[in-house]
């Protein structure tokens, strides 16, 4: 299960009134956090050149949204607060949309530069 699927499924089940098993969910939250923090560190150590900084900013935003969703999920499980499900879903969805936008924009500019490289030979 991916981080995105885990967040969607957990929030859906909370919303449906199910009881999330803390032993399973909290362990998965820790794993997901670790993965996201590794990705953040990797990006921090290798920033994009001038003109491409917005890609990094958008990636940090997506990582941040997923991390916030994980924080909320942890609280929902530990304090038994199903009402937080909607906020978890909103953040996950925003994170997913940000990733899609990064892919779309990077893909578009990659195609444009490829044409230029081709024209130059």
């Amino acid at each position, binding site marked *: 299960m991916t981080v995105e699927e885990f967040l969607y499924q957990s929030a859906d089940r909370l919303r449906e009134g199910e009881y999330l098993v803390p032993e399973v969910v909290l362990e998965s939250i820790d794993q997901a956090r670790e993965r996201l923090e590794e990705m953040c560190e990797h990006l921090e150590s290798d920033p994009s050149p001038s003109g491409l900084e917005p890609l990094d900013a958008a990636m940090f935003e997506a990582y941040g949204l997923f991390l916030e969703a994980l924080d909320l999920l942890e609280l929902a499980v530990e304090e038994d*607060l199903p009402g937080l499900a909607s906020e978890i879903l909103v953040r996950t969805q925003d994170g997913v949309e940000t990733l899609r936008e990064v892919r779309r924009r990077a893909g578009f500019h*990659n195609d444009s530069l490829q044409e230029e490289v081709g024209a130059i030979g």
Partner: protein
Amino acid sequence: MTEISSLGIGGAGVDTLERWALAQFTAPARMQRAQRKERIHEELSQLLFGVDLSPGELRLYRARLLEAIARVDDLERAELFLPERNLSVPRARMMMPVSGIGWLPSEQTTRTVEVSAAHEVHSRNLAKTLQTALALNPKSVHRDFHCVGIVMARGGEGVRWGEDKVQLSQWGLSVVNAQDYPKVAKLRLPPRFPSQAEMVQFRAG
């Protein structure tokens, strides 16, 4: 009482995760999130704006764009190793320990606990009763706030008793009387009562 709308939504002035989570439900928090999203998309639309690239840089920038796409893929495909157990169980099948006895609550028809005006009235009535009881015996440190007797029949073992009791200290009682719930770090009430967060949300609404 602390107004939720006055809490910092980005972390400033929010000393606990609980308070931060409550602040996320406010209108300013939602507006700030929407603005942040808009700003990120706006910045992405200005990618490579005004950048003049040499032939060598063109290749370098293409490589960096492909790396960005690979980063998105990495995150979308990041697999978690979940233990071989269910992520959740229906509440109707969840055993709750009550005074050493496993209690299986009856299936609920409502999906989540809803905070109603009735809860508020009930809580005030209980507080009044307890205030009277406290006046009669002021030396008592803890008082029963809510007490539920549970009768269980289990196979041939006959009928056994369980009890679910919530006690409040005099300080806790004062908090309930003052209806100043944010000062309560953790207020654990039986499922039919609203949790602290829900009470705060209800009061804020």
